[in-house]
């Protein structure tokens, strides 16, 4: 008789190459039954690649995946699902135009030819009782907030009764409270049922509080595995970044509040479905201060930023820069040195198929030094400036002629930072600048935004990460239901009250 393996899943010596690049170099990972295992690493460390090899998106060049004591050849996510490996992706895979119930039923590997909705709903409601959190079954997914969508994603996998559940950065869209709720429930589940969880993250807090074991990757290499009991955040940080120095802490220069540079008065904006989501918002940002807008996603932040960035027309209300009306024309942006780091920079601030050099020039390509008076572009200047910025901002790219869409998330964000911050902005709008980035990149981006503020820029920071708001802001406002409902400073802030205002109480 053989003793069953203590491991629910093992990846043994996985190597994956993309052309000449080695994304994974003989990486191993062992997930003990009934535990939460954290996979920790910086951007581009190979975490996602490893998981995609396990899930069958990629075929590893070398190495095996062992599941339930046996070597498995998993050639598609479908195979993985049939074996009992479920995965919650970093980006939502729910279908927005369908209801929660339809999404949940669709996820089943075998559906009957004709679906009896009454019976399905009844059985779903019964099954929901055993779930760690509740979601509205009949609601259309596009009406749900990010946190609720994440819960639906997890429930969708749990309904399939997986033996192994992989979560890819599951808390990056959640508020701290939601993140704690989701992770503690997931952890409880590993003890209640036969479930083992592999969670990709770069947040030490989550590793220390919710994981049993941790495996660290760096630049595609296996660095080590340990139980969390034997680890400290310092030891993990050392494993994660190696000998590289950790970025210096934020340098906030003492300075007097300057003139009001960005002034928003009674702004009303509707979303794509014609619903008012910014409802009479008033906001002022002065030179040399960072105003942080805290709030649960879906309370109008996105549309506010889109109006300021020129991607959406407001219904009514006024936006003024330095006292002059601002309608987000290119000329006005140039005149007021208005710069913006929107969320999802690849989609909102870049042209994906265009080269890094061209994307870096998007703000000023029609002006000297990029082009002459006759609007002839000087390609040599494009290249020279691009090379300078790639160097000074540490953008990791195969070359300045590579399409920017090929870069990793952190490097796309660095490219946009380089373009938006290099000509001393006067007004800077920043939205979720560190979404999905590792902590090294986060510190660097925070420092650069702080430097812009110290240089006298009026900075508006919109973020779903409350820690980031508290760390960065001079003033904090809370948005709820499309209006600012609370104002405070980080020094005097009462987190409980902020939480209540965020929740709309």
């Amino acid at each position, binding site marked *: 008789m053989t003793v069953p393996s203590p491991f629910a899943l093992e990846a043994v010596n996985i190597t994956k190459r993309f052309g000449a690049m080695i994304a994974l170099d003989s990486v191993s990972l062992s997930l003990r039954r009934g535990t939460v295992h954290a996979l920790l690493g910086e951007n581009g460390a190979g975490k996602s690649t490893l998981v995609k090899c396990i899930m069958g998106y990629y075929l590893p060049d070398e190495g095996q995946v062992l599941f339930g004591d046996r070597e498995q050849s998993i050639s*598609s*996510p*479908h195979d993985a*699902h049939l074996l009992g490996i479920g995965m919650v*992706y970093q980006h939502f*895979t*729910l*279908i*927005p*135009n*369908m209801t929660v119930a*339809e999404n949940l*039923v*669709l*996820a089943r*590997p075998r*559906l*009957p*030819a*004709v*679906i*009896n*909705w009454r019976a399905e709903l009844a059985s779903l409601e019964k099954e929901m009782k055993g779930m760690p959190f509740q979601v509205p079954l009949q609601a259309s997914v596009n009406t749900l907030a990010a946190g609720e969508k994440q819960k639906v994603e997890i429930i969708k996998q749990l309904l399939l009764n997986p033996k192994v559940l992989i979560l890819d950065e599951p808390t990056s869209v959640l508020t701290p409270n939601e993140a704690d709720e989701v992770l503690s429930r997931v952890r409880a589940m590993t003890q209640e049922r036969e479930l083992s969880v592999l969670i990709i993250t770069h947040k030490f807090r989550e590793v220390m509080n919710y994981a049993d074991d941790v495996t660290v990757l760096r630049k595609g290499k296996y660095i080590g595995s340990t139980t969390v009991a034997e680890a400290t955040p310092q030891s993990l940080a050392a494993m994660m970044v190696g000998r590289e120095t950790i970025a210096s802490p934020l340098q906030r220069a003492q300075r007097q509040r300057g003139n009001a540079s960005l002034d928003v008065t009674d702004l009303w904006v*509707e979303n*794509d*479905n*014609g619903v008012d989501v910014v409802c009479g918002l008033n906001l002022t940002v002065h030179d040399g201060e960072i105003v942080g807008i805290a709030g649960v996603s879906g309370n109008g932040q996105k549309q506010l930023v889109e109006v300021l960035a020129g991607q*959406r*027309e407001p219904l009514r209300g006024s936006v003024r820069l330095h006292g002059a009306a601002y309608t987000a024309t290119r000329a006005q942006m140039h005149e007021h040195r208005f710069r913006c780091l929107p969320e999802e920079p690849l989609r909102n601030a870049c042209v994906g198929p265009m080269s890094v050099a061209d994307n870096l020039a998007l703000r000023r390509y029609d002006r000297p030094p990029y082009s002459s008076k006759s609007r002839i572009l000087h390609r040599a200047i494009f290249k020279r400036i691009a090379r300078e910025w790639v160097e000074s901002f540490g953008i990791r790219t195969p070359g300045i002629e590579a399409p920017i869409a090929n870069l990793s998330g952190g490097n796309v964000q660095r490219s946009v930072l380089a373009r938006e911050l290099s000509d001393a902005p006067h007004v800077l709008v920043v939205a979720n600048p560190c979404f999905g980035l590792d902590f090294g990149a986060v510190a660097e981006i925070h420092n650069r935004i702080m430097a812009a503020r110290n240089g006298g820029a009026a900075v508006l920071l919109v973020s779903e990460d409350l820690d980031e708001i508290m760390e960065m802001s001079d003033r904090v406002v809370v948005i709820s239901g499309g209006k600012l409902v609370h104002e405070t400073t980080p020094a005097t802030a009462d987190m409980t009250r902020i939480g209540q205002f965020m929740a709309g109480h």
Partner: protein
Amino acid sequence: MNGEEVGLIGILFAVLGGAIRVGTPFLFVSLGECLTERSGRINLGLEGNLVMGAMLAYGISYISGSPWLGVLAAAGAGSLLGLVHALLCQQPRVNDIAVGIALMLFGTGLAFFWGKPFIQPTAPHLPAISLGGWSDMPALRAALEINVLFIIGIILAPALAWFFRTSRWGLNVRCVGESTEAALAMGLKVNRVRLLSTMVGGALAGVGGSFLSLYYPGSWNEGLSSGQGLMAVALVIFARWDPVKCVYASLLFGGAAALGPALQSVGVTWGYYLFNAAPYVLTLAIMIATSSAKRRLPGMPGVFSNVK
């Protein structure tokens, strides 16, 4: 009853009857386009399917003596054109709009080429059911001469809605049309779902064409279709990709198209061509009224939201 009243009621009945007569091909083409678009492809080539279906249905009906065999042939030809569209579109870097326009020209051109011998002869027509026997008003009786294809069409529309809502295949089609990534993650074969949807959609458009040549106007010539296949695309948007609403939209378009002839039949001769343009004006007006630069169209399949 004075003459003016008879005229007004006459116009009303004529428009009603016309809505059904002219609306039937709209109905089939729009149901076909609805199915295709819900799977995430736009097939602009349905005009070609329509004309090809009309020609083939007429020819087969003439040769075999059975109009239903003609309808079947039209459906077959339509699904073949759909197959070509789907196969071309699933090649990398092929645009479905461009393929659609090419196939529209191909389908109509081929139909004209093969259809030359069928312009003169008379083929057996599709039957109609008289639902107006209880009335002694000839205008109403004429309006209630309901063709069998229309009845099939109005049964098909709720059936298609049911299919989208409660059948596995229907959910698969919607899933593929809403998000390619989600569908792939679920292990659906995206290209195959779209291929089948385009083929069935093409077949329905072919049936719509058979109605033109075998019922109303009821003969084959090169000026038979006046762009119904293209207008059906606008109609699907107007109907918000909902098959049941396609019925109402088709009747509305059909009624608009019947306005000119109806007025002429009661002696209003001025503006005949103006009224004949009513469906086209309606198409434009609806596109303007229902589209918005800022809002997403409710009901639009998700894969189109990137291109708008």
